[in-house]
Structures are given as structure tokens and as C-alpha cells.
């Protein structure tokens, strides 16, 4: 009998230990590791010329003066590009995003949209040349308000040839990028029959990712004439596939290399810079480099989808939830990247929380506007939907006069249960039915209450004249990859010396996935962390993986690594058994050595590695395995978030005194790194709740285009963040793990909104909760009283 992969083992020796991040010291010492650290010295510098108008048609581009400048290598316009509609969204194939974009187009659809490409010998010359381009625009009237986009006489995408890959509700002539609707039971009937009802609306804003490393890429032709692109990406294979389409090149001619990435959060799950360096390299034969300025990151990469979330709840007087109706309007900006899928996640990763309702409905439209495109961003629809849902649940608690915690406990999902929503709603497609095998929400809530000092009788108290403290809470779920769509692979090869090469397509973007994947391999192979040399990711040299998104890496890629390590273990035993001419059942592999059950033979892994590569004559072979994993389900991690705020009624300022997040992520493969995923997610969510806002002028010019005008939380802004992980074990996950990347961000906007409601009696509806809005709401309530 072969040994089964480790599935139900409660104790681990490498997994569940806080091993140091494998690249931590090197990155701190500043070793050349990120894309722009590695650029060949002879690379051309690429600058993009961006639209100054929110909507315009390019009438002409005169490059005469620019091309006269010494050192200018080329100027490229829409006329130099294949006329192929693409999407920039890094997603599976076929993409659920509409193909509504050209690398360069005759039309520009937001301030910052790419109008032309300039390449020169140095950056200053490229900038100068860009300023010398004479572009004549026919300025068109834009649509800036997403509530007036649908069926507006202005059509943002009038062009022919753009299309959806499969039905997603794409109706560009109506400014609709995607639409969706689902219903279980009869929501109207249930609501009408419900003695207690609430009807709420929340507007969630566009948010910027602000990964510390701006987007960068460089390209060159290798010795075989193949196009190599080194880029800060979250998904090398999707990048290659999209570029192949965009440039009309066979995929075999393209190689994508991901070096270290300085943060992603979804920002690098798209092709923003790669097509432009590729165009220049293909045109000139020269290496080409681009590094966006922070302003360009704000003006031309994506944001979180702005949404309006309307919720209606119906309940019995005892607090039994009977119906949920969630209607959403989402703003995808100028192009429809991730339009349908973020929209669906607003329902699919929130509604199952309250799985006992008799009827549930979800639907609405995703519309185009002349703003920066929206795309993938940690939380990906869930944070928008959850902010609406968890605000409405608190309103219901107020209306019923019951504890918001107990109302949730009464109605929320538990281990062993399911939700129809899992089966109905996937990401762009139908979902996958799933029973919940691990859900420790009860424990998350119990511990969270303890850590924040929750007392239903005292949710607000005065600390000084005009200053109050208040508590609020929310619960959340996420997923672990996209079932039946996401796939990850791992290859393991024994090396002379008895260590292993682990190649994964999984894309470490700074999260520490290289470290946790090495831990899983070390655990299963019974070796030390140092014996696993991990490399990610390169389309030429590592096996396939969809990439780092959708909370997939630990669960999907981690399962692939576990499978590969289990296969390697079997293969090692089989090979040694064959060499010894015994049955594999008679070989024990332990402590990096093989022995027969009867103890007659013994061989260290170290010696075996030399034997198989140098000493075994015709039986010499490299010991190598490759395995893949795609999930049949997407077990949700859960989190209970509790906040204590201080609210100044004179100024409207809200400060987070303490935020407690207690999470169930299954087995944390690396407790330190899992915890920090939650801590960082919470702060990003607090940023969205209180500070961060993408703002435009009435002409559509971005006002929040640097870190002075777009404030992310500093270390002085928030009191304390306390995170704990509860004991949990997901039977379908690698070593019991679920994913941890997104769940942290989801609760803060709702929990803080609920705390402000407890502090003031007012329900704020427009994120972020800046002092002006808080103050206006307090004044309005006082005026009404």
C-alpha cells in the first residue's frame, strides 16, 4: 500500500509553524529582485502618452517633431496595432470579461487612457518626445455618473467588433458591460409576508490598490528570437495568452517571467504595461522598459468597482430571517474588466452567510462610465456586497431591538450546512454545490466579543464631552479559489545532495506563498525547509498555474504541491524498492532515509540521490513528478470583525481605537504569514471605510492622483489591530488549510458603519466615512429630530 497524502494528520512538523519567509532577508537587503531592478542597460525607455480628455476621438497624431529629437526610437499609435479586441483582465479561458478594448484605439475613454507610445534611449528623451507629440482630439461629452449611464444617449462603446466570450449580458449600446439575475424562492412574496422589513442602500466607492511597487515590465528578444517579458504580474499564463491574442502571436513565441513582485492586491492581475514594451521590442528589435509613475498607476491602472448596493430584508419578530433581496449597480469605468465576476461575487460570497432564508434574490447591471476602469481588487465584490448586507442586518437588529451578534448567530451558516447560492452562482458561470465542512464562525464570534469587550447593553459610551466610543461588528466569508476553473501545478525533482527543486506556477506577489508552498512540500517529504528550493514563476520553466488571485494560492496551488510531494514520496519508495528488489510495502522512508521493514537495508536520501544520478548505470534516472489540482469546491474562510471607534461629534472625525479580527482559515500553513494576511487586509479595509476615495473633477480629471491626495493608512492612523486564528481543519484543503488572502479586508466598512450607527443613531450610506459626511449626517439627524 502506498502512503496516502497527509489529510487528517492533526500534528505537523513543518506546516503550522511560523517559518521565516524564504526571501525576507534578501529583499530587505535590497538585492536586485523586482522587475525594474533587472532591466538590461541597453533597453529603450517607453513612455505612454495619455488622454487629457474623459472621452474623445483622436483625429490625428503628428509625430514629426518628436521623431526629430535625437535618441527617439519610435512613436506608435493605434494605426500601428492589430485591430483585435481584447480584455486586459487576467482570468481563465474563455474570459468572463468582454473583449471591449484595443491595445491602442482611435477613441480614448478616460483621462489617462493610452493614446500613443514613445520609446527613446533614455527616460528624459522619452518624456520630452511624448510632450512633442501633436494629438488633435475631437472632444466628446463623457458619462461620469454611473447612476445615469444605462441607456444614456451617449454611448461609450459604439465601435464594431467588440464582443463577449459567452453570454454575460453584454449590451454596449446601452452602456451595459454585464448583467445578472438570480432568484431562489419568491422574494416578493416572502417580503410581503414578513412582519419586519428593512430597506437599505449603501454606496461603496472606487478604491486604489496602492501596491508599493508601481507596475513595471521590460521585454527583449532572446537568442531564439522569442519575445521575453519580465513583468510584475500576478498571472504569467493569462498574460501570455492575452498578449498572444493582442499581438497576434503564437503563444510558443512568448515567455513571461515573474520576478519578485512588490505587492498586488489584484492590481497586477491585468495587462497594463506588457503590451506596450512588447510592441516596442517587436518594432525595434531592442529591449524595452516601462515603469509607471505613481500618478500613472492612479490614472491608468484599475480601481475597485464602485457599487450601489440595495438590500431588502424580511424577518419574523423572533429574528428569523425569511428573505434577502440584493440589487446592485456596479461601475466598471471605461472598460469591462472583471465586470460580471466582481458583480456576482457581491452576492455569491455574501448571501450564503445567511443560508436559512426561504427566498433570496440577487441582480443588477454593470455599467460603463468615462472613468478609470475597475478591475480585480482584494475582496473583489464581496466587500461591496458585504458592506450592504451587514449594514442591513444591523438595521434589522435595531428594528427588532435585539443584539446584532445574536441576530447573526441565529441566522448564519454552520458546519455541515449548505446554501443554494453555492450551486447557482459561480464566477461568470453556474456555481458548484458545496457542503460546508469547516466553519468556526461561532468560535470567531465568541473570541472576538471577548477581545473587544462586547456588551450588548453598552455599545456606545461617552469618553469626553462630545466624544464617544462605540462598538460595531460584522461577519464575513470568502472562498478558496474558483472551483472547476482555477488550476495550479507543481513539479518536484530530487537533486544530487538529497534536496528538492520545487517549481510552481503559483505567483508569489509578496504574500509568502513561496514559503508556505515549500512548507507543504517539506512536510509531506519529511525534510527540512532548507531542503526545498522553490522557484516561481516563469512560463518557460515552471508548470502552469492560473495565478495569484481569488484566494486560490494556498488551497489550489497548495493542494497541487501536496499532491506532487505525495507522488514524489511514492516514487522514491518505488524506485528504492525496485533497486533493492523488494516490494514497496517493505520500504520505509523516514528521517531522510530508506530502510527495509526488517532493517536489513538502509540508504540515506543523500546517498540515493547520488546513486540515481551518478552510480546506477542503466538504471540512472532523475526522480521527478508533476501534479495538478483543481478544486471541486471552494471552502470559505470566515472572519468575525469587531471594532471600537472614537467619534468626535464636533468634527465628525472617526478613529479606529481597536479592530479585532478572528478568522477561520483552516490550518494556517504558516501562522505568522496567515495572520499578517488578515492584519494587512483589515487595515486596507479600514482605509476603504474611513480615508480612501477616488475623486474626479466635473470634467472627469482624476483629483486623487498621488499619495498626498489619495491617503492610505499610515502607522499613526489606527489604534491597534488584533488578529487571532481559531482552530479549524478543512478536510478538502492541503494539510487542512483554506485560503487567507482576502477574508481580512471584508468586514471593516460594515463594522465601522455599524459602530457609527451605534454612536450617532445615523446610518451612513456613502463610503468613505470622512468627517464631513459624518458631521452632515449628525446635523441632518439633529435637524430632523
Amino acid at each position: 500500500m502506498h502512503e496516502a497524502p497527509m489529510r487528517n494528520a492533526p500534528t505537523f512538523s513543518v506546516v503550522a509553524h511560523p517559518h521565516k519567509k524564504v526571501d525576507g532577508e534578501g529583499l530587505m537587503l535590497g538585492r536586485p529582485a523586482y522587475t525594474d531592478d533587472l532591466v538590461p542597460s541597453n533597453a529603450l525607455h517607453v513612455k505612454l502618452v495619455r488622454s487629457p480628455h474623459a472621452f474623445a476621438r483622436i483625429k490625428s497624431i503628428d509625430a514629426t517633431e518628436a521623431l526629430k529629437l535625437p535618441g527617439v526610437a519610435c512613436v506608435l499609435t493605434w494605426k500601428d496595432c492589430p485591430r483585435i479586441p481584447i480584455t486586459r483582465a487576467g482570468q481563465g479561458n474563455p474570459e468572463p470579461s468582454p473583449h471591449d478594448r484595443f491595445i491602442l484605439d482611435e477613441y480614448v475613454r478616460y483621462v489617462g487612457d493610452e493614446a500613443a507610445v514613445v520609446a527613446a534611449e533614455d527616460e528624459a528623451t522619452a518624456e520630452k518626445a511624448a510632450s512633442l507629440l501633436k494629438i488633435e482630439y475631437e472632444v466628446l461629452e463623457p458619462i461620469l455618473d454611473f447612476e445615469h449611464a444605462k441607456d444614456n444617449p451617449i454611448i461609450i462603446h459604439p465601435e464594431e467588433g467588440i464582443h463577449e466570450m459567452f453570454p454575460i449580458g453584454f449590451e454596449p449600446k446601452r452602456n451595459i458591460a454585464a448583467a445578472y439575475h438570480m432568484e431562489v424562492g419568491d422574494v416578493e412574496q416572502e417580503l410581503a409576508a414578513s412582519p419586519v422589513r428593512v430597506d437599505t442602500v449603501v454606496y461603496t466607492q472606487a478604491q486604489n490598490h496602492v501596491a508599493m511597487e508601481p507596475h513595471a515590465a521590460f521585454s527583449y528578444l532572446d537568442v531564439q528570437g522569442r519575445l521575453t517579458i519580465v513583468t510584475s504580474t500576478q498571472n504569467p499564463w493569462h498574460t501570455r495568452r492575452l498578449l498572444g491574442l493582442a499581438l497576434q502571436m503564437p503563444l510558443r513565441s512568448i515567455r513571461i517571467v515573474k520576478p519578485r513582485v512588490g505587492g498586488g492586491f489584484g492590481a497586477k492581475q491585468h495587462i497594463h504595461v506588457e503590451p506596450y514594451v512588447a510592441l516596442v521590442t517587436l518594432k525595434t528589435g531592442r529591449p524595452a522598459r516601462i515603469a509607471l509613475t505613481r500618478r500613472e498607476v492612479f490614472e491608468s491602472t484599475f480601481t475597485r468597482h464602485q457599487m450601489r448596493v440595495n438590500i431588502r430584508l424580511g424577518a419574523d419578530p423572533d429574528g428569523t430571517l425569511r428573505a434577502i433581496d440584493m440589487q446592485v449597480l456596479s461601475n466598471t469605468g471605461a472598460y469591462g474588466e472583471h465586470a460580471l465576476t466582481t458583480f456576482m461575487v457581491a452576492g455569491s460570497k455574501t448571501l450564503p452567510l445567511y443560508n436559512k432564508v426561504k427566498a433570496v434574490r440577487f441582480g443588477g447591471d454593470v455599467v460603463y462610465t468615462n472613468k478609470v476602469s475597475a478591475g480585480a481588487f482584494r475582496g473583489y465584490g464581496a466587500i461591496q456586497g458585504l458592506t450592504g448586507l451587514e449594514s442591513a442586518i444591523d438595521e434589522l437588529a435595531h428594528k427588532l431591538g435585539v443584539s446584532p451578534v445574536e441576530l447573526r448567530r441565529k441566522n448564519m451558516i454552520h458546519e455541515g450546512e449548505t446554501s443554494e447560492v453555492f450551486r447557482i452562482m459561480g464566477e461568470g458561470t453556474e456555481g458548484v454545490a458545496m457542503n460546508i465542512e469547516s466553519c468556526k464562525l461561532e468560535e470567531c464570534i465568541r473570541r472576538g466579543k471577548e477581545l473587544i469587550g462586547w456588551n450588548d447593553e453598552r455599545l456606545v459610551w461617552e469618553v469626553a464631552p462630545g466624544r464617544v466610543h462605540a462598538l460595531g461588528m460584522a461577519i464575513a466569508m470568502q472562498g478558496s479559489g474558483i472551483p472547476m476553473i482555477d488550476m495550479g501545478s507543481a513539479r518536484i525533482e530530487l537533486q544530487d545532495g538529497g534536496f528538492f527543486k520545487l517549481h510552481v506556477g503559483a505567483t508569489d506577489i509578496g504574500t509568502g506563498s513561496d514559503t508556505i508552498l515549500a512548507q507543504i512540500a517539506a512536510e509531506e517529504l519529511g525534510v527540512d525547509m532548507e531542503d526545498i528550493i522553490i522557484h516561481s514563476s516563469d512560463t518557460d520553466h515552471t508548470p502552469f498555474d492560473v495565478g495569484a488571485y481569488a484566494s486560490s494560492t494556498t488551497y489550489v496551488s497548495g493542494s497541487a504541491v501536496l499532491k506532487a510531494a505525495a507522488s514524489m514520496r511514492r516514487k522514491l519508495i518505488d524506485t528504492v524498492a525496485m533497486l533493492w528488489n523488494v516490494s514497496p510495502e517493505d520500504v520505509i522512508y523516514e528521517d531522510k532515509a530508506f530502510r527495509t521493514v526488517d532493517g536489513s537495508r538502509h540508504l540515506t536520501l543523500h546517498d540515493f540521490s547520488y546513486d540515481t544520478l551518478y552510480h546506477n548505470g542503466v538504471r540512472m534516472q532523475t526522480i521527478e513528478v508533476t501534479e495538478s489540482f483543481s478544486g471541486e469546491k471552494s471552502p470559505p474562510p470566515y472572519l468575525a470583525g469587531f471594532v471600537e471607534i472614537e467619534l468626535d461629534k464636533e468634527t465628525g472625525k472617526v478613529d479606529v481605537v481597536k479592530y479585532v479580527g478572528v478568522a477561520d482559515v483552516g490550518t494556517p500553513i504558516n501562522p505568522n504569514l496567515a495572520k499578517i494576511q488578515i492584519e494587512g487586509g483589515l487595515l486596507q479595509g479600514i482605509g476603504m471605510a474611513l480615508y480612501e476615495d477616488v475623486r474626479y473633477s466635473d470634467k472627469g480629471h482624476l483629483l486623487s492622483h498621488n499619495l498626498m491626495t489619495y491617503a492610505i493608512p499610515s502607522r499613526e492612523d489606527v489604534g491597534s489591530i488584533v488578529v487571532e486564528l481559531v482552530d479549524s481543519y478543512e478536510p478538502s484543503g492541503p494539510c487542512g488549510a483554506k485560503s487567507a488572502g482576502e477574508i481580512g479586508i471584508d468586514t471593516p466598512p460594515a463594522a465601522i458603519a455599524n459602530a457609527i450607527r451605534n454612536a450617532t443613531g445615523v446610518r451612513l450610506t456613502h463610503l468613505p466615512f470622512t468627517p464631513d459626511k459624518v458631521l452632515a449626517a449628525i446635523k441632518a439627524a439633529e435637524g430632523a429630530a
Partner: protein
Amino acid sequence: MIVTITINGKKESLQIEPGDMLVDTLRNAGHVEVKKGCDTGNCGVCTVLLDGKPIRSCSFLAVRAEGHEITTIQGVAEEARRFADFLNREGADQCGFCAPGFALTVIAMKRELKNPTEEEIRHYLAGNLCRCTGYESQHRAIRNYLEADHA
């Protein structure tokens, strides 16, 4: 024009344009350990020490460094390794892009402030932004790092 700057103890003569920012001059000279994050002096990833004091090299003209000593993380590698160990033990090293600038500021703070309070630490480091960690783990590491010297 040529500027002469002592970088990590070594005198280097570098060709620059008058408007060049120090970060670009350093990176072009191969010091890619100095990162570029925001271009407006807000994020701190470009932090270097000028005669021992932290500055933002993205908002500091290279010409002003003439005759001065610039220290990048490579210039304090031994101390940085010591601090990295504390940071690693907390898992507080995430994408790492802010790490060289952040670590330099921590090292400068340690030289400048004796027994800083939590508030003083947060204030001293406020200009070093991090989007990954939520800061808590960094502060656990800093406290352990500072306390290790008193042990």
C-alpha cells in the same frame, strides 16, 4: 554635470543632469536597493541616509548630495541583517518593496532615540508606508529588536 558623492563609504563621481533626483542617480549607478514608489516623498521606499539622517531620495536633488555621505541599506548591511531577523520572525516581511527604506529608518531611529515610546516609534516611522502588513507585525518586530539590546 558631475557630482561626487560618498556612497556607502566609497567616493563615486556620477554624471547627472541638474534636475535629476537622487533616487534616479543612485539607481542608475547600480544602487537598485533604493526603490521608487510614489515620486512625491510620501511613501518612504526611497529612503536613504544623508550624513546619517533619513531623507526621501525621490524628492532630493542629486546635486544637493555633492560632497555628502549617502548610506543605502547596503551600507548598513550587518545591522539590517540583525533587524531582518526580528522582522522575519514575525512574518512582517511581506512584498519587501518598502523593506530597505523602512529598515534604514528603523536603524536611524535606533541611533537617534533612546528608549522610544510606542507613540514615538510610530511617529518617527510614519513616513514609511506599507500596504501589506497593517504595521502591527512590524511594530512587534521593532519592539523585540530594540529590547534585544537592553537584554
